[in-house]
């Protein structure tokens, strides 16, 4: 009996909490409102099922808890009911899955106009690279990594010479411009995660992974590493700054290309 009441109370708390608690999605800053929508659809459907099942149990306990003289009915099966429930469940599942898959198709297919940048992770910091004038990122591999060449660009690849290297500093991107982020790790798994963008993807040493998004509001956003990467995992942060064209161009003009970096280092050595 008490149990029946407690179950009802739990349902009430659960529903009320959902609406009044201060803990909800961080305000969105990318095009992935569609992911939030898919999530909300799933939330509503599963929420209804949770409430229904729990209240049904509470009712059953309330009505059928033991009293002297009560005897249960003997109904081992009810084929019709079982098939109905199976059918309804299937419908609910499809209602969640279909929108989810549609959005997934968007998530994994970057639009043609997306501009690339690269994020490179290593224990426990982020570096970035932008394609230069030629619009293409040059080849890179872990074996080329050295003090002078922290991201491991292939020194022989002409495409890489104009790439812009952002070492130990904030990354800037352009408002409303779709970006595809190529991800590379020099050591262990990491994950590029900006909660406001909703999107995330692991960095895997030995391969290049990607995801894409379009930033829809300006501001400074923190990159958190979301894949355990050793003791410094929770300190592995970076900053992405979303800004308008003017500010972005100013920033861009200040950055060094790979070739310039190499030349500077040569200069340092000759001094």
């Amino acid at each position, binding site marked *: 009996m008490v149990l029946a009441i407690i179950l009802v109370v739990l349902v009430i708390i659960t529903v009320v909490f959902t609406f009044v608690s201060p803990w909800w999605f961080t305000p969105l800053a990318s095009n992935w409102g569609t992911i939030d929508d898919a999530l909300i659809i799933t939330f509503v459907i599963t929420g209804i099922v949770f409430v229904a099942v729990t209240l049904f149990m509470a009712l059953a306990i309330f009505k059928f808890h033991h009293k002297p003289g009560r005897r249960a009915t003997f109904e081992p099966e009810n084929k019709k009911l079982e098939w109905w429930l199976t059918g309804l469940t*299937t419908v609910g599942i499809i209602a969640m899955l279909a929108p989810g898959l549609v959005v997934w198709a968007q998530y994994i297919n970057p639009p043609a106009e997306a501009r690339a940048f690269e994020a490179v992770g290593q224990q426990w910091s982020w570096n970035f690279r932008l394609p230069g004038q030629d619009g293409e990122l040059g080849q890179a591999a872990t074996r080329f990594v050295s003090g002078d060449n922290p991201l491991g660009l292939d020194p022989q690849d002409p495409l890489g010479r104009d790439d812009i290297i952002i070492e130990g500093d904030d990354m800037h991107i352009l408002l409303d411009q779709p970006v595809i982020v190529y991800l590379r790790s020099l050591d262990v798994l990491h994950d590029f995660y900006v909660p406001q963008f909703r999107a995330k993807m692991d960095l895997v040493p030995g391969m290049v992974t990607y995801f894409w998004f379009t930033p829809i509001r300006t501001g400074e956003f923190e990159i958190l590493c979301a894949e355990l990467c050793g003791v410094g995992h929770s300190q592995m942060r970076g900053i992405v700054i979303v800004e308008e064209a003017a500010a972005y161009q100013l920033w861009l003009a200040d950055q060094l290309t790979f070739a310039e970096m190499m030349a500077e280092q040569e200069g340092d050595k000759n001094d």
Partner: protein
Amino acid sequence: MTDETAKDYDAEMHEPTHFFTKYIWSQDHKVIAVQYSITAMAIGLVALVLSWLMRLQLGFPGVFDFIDQEAYYQYVTMHGMIMVIYLLTAFFLGGFGNYLIPLMVGARDMVFPYLNMLSYWVYLLAVLVLVASFFVTGGPTGAGWTLYPPQSILPGTPGYDGGIILMLVSLIIFIVAFTMGGLNYVTTILQARARGMTLMRMPLSVWGIFVATFMGLLAFPALFVSGVMLLLDRVIGTSFFMPEIVSLGEPLAYGGGSPLLFQHLFWFFGHPEVYIVALPAFGIVSDLLSVHARKAIFGYRMMVWALLAIGVLSFIVWAHHMYVSGMDPAFGYFFAVTTLIIAVPTAIKVYNWTLTLWKADIHLTIPMMFAIAFILTFVFGGLTGLFLGNVVVDVPLSDTYFVVAHFHMVMGVAPILVVFGAIYHWYPKITGRMLHEGMGKVHFWVTFLGTYAIYFPMHYLGFVGVPRRYYDYEDIEFIPDSVADLNMAITIAALVVGAAQLMFIYNLVWSLIWGKKADSNPWKANSLEWQTPDTPPKHGNWGVEMPTVYRWAYDFSVPGAAEDYMPQNMPPQPFEAHRAAHPEEGPEEDKPGEDKPEEGGT
């Protein structure tokens, strides 16, 4: 019964008389079950204490200076691994599997008693090796229970020196132990059932344990090989999972291996593992519900088919743990579909449990309350699983506290609630005494409501975007201060829940000595373990005469029967003969387990 058979019986049983062979080096499945359970509980206590330490750090960051980052990750890892493998898997299969299978199918013991005994001692060895890793230089591994390379075997991770090696060795030993036990359970169920115990008359507990064991036998080898390969990478420098790496500024000699390969192997084991823990719980809870609701489990045949369907399907969903791992994202479609399909048989089980309560005669005993709490918790955790299975919805949530909350609900708390319910249910059979009811009630309410208080709000931290496996959150800008308050509240709840478990253990010991004496069938249940001539059952279980089974385990409240239960070994009654002769009189004739009493095993 002749003297002859009695003499054969004595000779065949050669019951051990010495204390040592009876209770320590024992081949009796009941003793081995208790050994498994006590060992699992002991190591589980370690995992519980580790969870307090983690929660202390999260609730009161910086207050306890001995919990530094290294220690935190070591606690996370050891806690997770112990809970999943050394507590739950061992408890359900080694503990309940051992105790219940021979008694429920009507056998004298497991078919390979010696192997069964070895299985326990090898398991104990695995536990000891695991514990040893707390004492080596560098401490236990802090790689996370998933042990993902390259990180798990590189210097940036705590326990890189000895801890990871001992962890892998311990897992390998555990799998050896599991295989010895598992082959035994499967063979016993297939070969040693009592006369009349057809497969479709077996209690669902046995079905759950059977399917889970079978899955374990297929899934653990994937962990075994990946463990061996990882060990080779770490110890002799092979590169199965290791690409070119510059670690903390040093180029390493590795090259060419694939970190993703490990993840595939790990989750090929890891996902079925979830169900290896869940299916025995499903089976046991079905029996608890049916007995304490005095009503046949609803849809027995559907329940069996659902178990089998879940067992098969769970081998083709593993990569739902890898949606954002960097594998080819097109796999996402396939694994999202298979994952959501599995929800259908799972939902059927939930419906059938709740429908078993409808028009029942519900006795709110402690096992029953735990069973109902299980349904609620499992439904919650199952439903949040749909978020994570629905590929694109997983993207923002993966690796956040939503995941932590989800898997604790579904494979942490829910199965543990069944373990508790099952202990309250079978303790009288195992020891001959009832557990103290007052303590049981306190234990139930604190555990049920306390765990809900811990994990329900935690889902919302995941919505906020709070990442998991973080030592602290203090300077993360987007996380509001209120999160720290919530974390503090959760920590307090966790400490209270933990304290209730200590009281439960006290109850186990207290009742052994002072508990009320139990009669042989205190819950008036049908399955065979309650029909033994002695309580607790003696060596050989059945005395001289083996039981014969005439019916399924769910003949509760059968119309026309004098009592509201009919044990499986109760021969057909006169009122039933009439029905059998006139099938046209009612659809009840089509009830499961009512096929001709053919031979089971021997």
